[in-house]
């Protein structure tokens, strides 16, 4: 029982981390109808910037307070991400207004390639460290109830807290502000949104900057877990089923989807894995999503797919 709880908690924590990446997808999709393939690359790019800045800034300025160094690096990386958002809008999106989703998806792929190459050129392709001082040691709860206690990872706990805070803030933003409404309008119909004076360029810079911010947070947390290196961009693959399960357009869905997938994956790997030969978590999330979609084709919290003549 203790172990089961532990597995579930582990799953919840992993799920929260997936959500963090998934959130970036949802944001951009919701606000512009673009499925942003570059999200993984953005996570890597942001993390690389932050990791390297955390090395460079203190060295340049002769600082040696780690907190300030990290804060500076974070701010620096954020500036970089805003610049990236601006460039993407200028050079890519503004020229592809009113194109089909799949074309935009392909364009974001081009962006992903570019960022991968550019990031590694600027910042190097070795493995770098982000150390924001998240504790790494395990925490054992309920040791009196279960033998060995229930293991919780403190680092994950913090990460989960950050993710939750982000999600709540963003949900409120989308649901209750007029900019949020405008963003949803843009996603529905670029041209109509333009026609009533919603400035697509400004909106897109904002959204991509927010997505850049989410990517930076995700990159920071994942980076401090994994080290910053190319593989970081592959966490996007873990986020895909999460996005879809929660529904492409739902911010809270990203979280709940993440939690479900996280738990499902871990529980299945731990309890079913051994009989099936292991390694099943790689497909479990996707198969789960497949079955959920059969019942709810728009994911758990997604907007209903409109189908009308």
């Amino acid at each position, binding site marked *: 029982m203790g*172990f089961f709880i*532990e*597995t579930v908690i*582990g*799953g919840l*924590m*992993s799920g929260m981390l997936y959500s963090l990446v998934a959130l970036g997808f949802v944001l951009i999709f919701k606000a512009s109808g673009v499925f942003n393939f570059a999200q993984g690359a953005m996570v890597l790019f942001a993390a690389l910037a932050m990791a390297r800045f955390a090395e460079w800034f203190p060295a340049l300025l002769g600082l040696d307070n780690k907190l300030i160094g990290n804060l500076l690096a974070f701010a620096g990386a954020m500036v970089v991400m805003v610049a990236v958002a601006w460039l993407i809008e200028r050079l890519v999106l503004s020229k592809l207004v009113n194109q089909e989703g799949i074309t935009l998806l392909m364009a974001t792929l081009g962006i992903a390639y570019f960022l991968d190459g550019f990031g*590694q050129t600027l910042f190097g*392709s*070795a*493995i770098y*460290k982000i150390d924001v001082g998240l504790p*790494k*040691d*395990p925490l054992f709860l309920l040791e009196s109830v279960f033998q060995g206690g229930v*293991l919780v*990872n403190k*680092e*994950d706990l913090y990460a989960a807290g950050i993710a939750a805070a982000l999600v709540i803030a963003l949900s409120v933003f989308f649901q209750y502000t007029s900019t949020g409404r405008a963003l949803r309008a843009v996603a529905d119909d670029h041209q109509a949104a333009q026609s009533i004076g919603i400035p697509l360029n400004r909106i897109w810079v904002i959204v991509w900057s927010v997505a850049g911010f989410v990517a930076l947070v995700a990159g920071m947390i*994942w980076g401090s*877990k*994994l*080290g910053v*290196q*190319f*593989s*970081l961009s*592959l*966490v996007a693959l*873990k986020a895909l089923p999460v996005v879809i399960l929660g529904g492409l357009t739902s911010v809270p869905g990203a979280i709940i989807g993440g939690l479900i997938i996280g738990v499902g*994956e*871990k529980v299945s*790997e*731990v309890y079913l*894995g*051994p009989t099936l*030969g*292991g*390694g099943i*978590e*790689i497909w479990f999330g996707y198969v789960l999503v497949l079955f959920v979609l059969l019942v709810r084709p728009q994911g758990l919290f997604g907007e209903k797919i409109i189908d009308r003549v």
Partner: protein
Amino acid sequence: QAKVQFFPSLTGRTGPVAPNATPFANGYADYMKLVNARGGINGVQTLVEECETAYATDRGVECYERLKGKHGGATVFQPLSTGITFALTEKIPNDKIPMITSGYGRSDSQDGGVFKWNFPLIGHYWVAGDTVLQHIAKKEGGWDKLKGKKIAVVYHDSPFGKELLPIIQERQKMHGFEVQLLPVPAPGVEQKAIWLQVRQQRPDFVIMQTWGVMTATALKEAIATGYPREKMFGTWWSGAEPDLKDVGAAAKGYSAVMMQHGAEPQAAVVKEILDKVHAKGQGTGPKDEVGQVLYMRGVVGAMLAVEGVRAAQERFGKGKVMTGEQARWGYENLDLTQAKLDALGFKGVMRPVSTSCFNHMGSAWARVHTWDGAKFTWASDWLQADEQLIKPMVKASAEKYAAEKKLTRRAPADCQS
């Protein structure tokens, strides 16, 4: 015009394994430069051209095709990827180019009777598996102490990872320990479920056949679940500085079996490279990487590649450029005695290597090193994989391959060519 011997280098300087594959490529390039600084192979200069595979098989194949005919023909390939090795194994007999796969690729290609062109020199996965088990057994006080013990194998879920398993299972049958297989789906950035299982099953030891980011992640998860690093043993692709640097002191106690060499900052060859290559500003990578584990593996790989050519020159003409076919003969008739190795600067790094027509490995020695929080230290004596055990496995597997391919085993007469 100067005579040049062309050594293509398939690199993985980008992509998922860049941190690990880059030092290898640097070591390879630097040693070749050193050979030239020493006057070449009996006067024949070496030439390296790189081609980036990003650890992807199809790009590897493209690189192979691109480089094989260049600069008078490739001497030998070292793809540094099991996937590429599998693909090239089908191609090299036609092109008559040998391939060295030290420590990876097909274990059964040790059998030169079937795999005429493959050379898993100085070790393959089964050697790693056997020696790491030997080390564990020794620590426990003998093979019989392993009976009833539980060993978890955390491996990369791919042919690279799976190649290790036959030897573990063979040993399991012999010694009656329990094996728990834990495949990690690539790229291995998410291993919570694996380590939760480790925590639940509490195996006595964990053997890791991991590569790239997977190793560091495994260590971090082990730390997070409180599994003692002292009970974790990597194979030789799972214990290098890039894997551990980021984890640092927390990984203290983690060990990995090494294909003879480990991190060798003191070796003569390292000093010579620093002197004759880096000091001249011709170093390929950063200076502090010279002598690290994977850098050394590149150096050793280059040395083997060069020495094969030297051996071939003995037969086909000193100071001549060797064709791939001639070089192959050299690799098949390597006889690197300790004295020769010492003279090359590999004293304390390597043991003698001697290949033959039917033994394309030439040596099966290994050592184990342990991370002390900042660097590696040796933790075992020389260990030799049990040839009695491995030979039949190699033979059986090679025979199966030959049967599938309708190949006939090379006749002893063929060994003379």
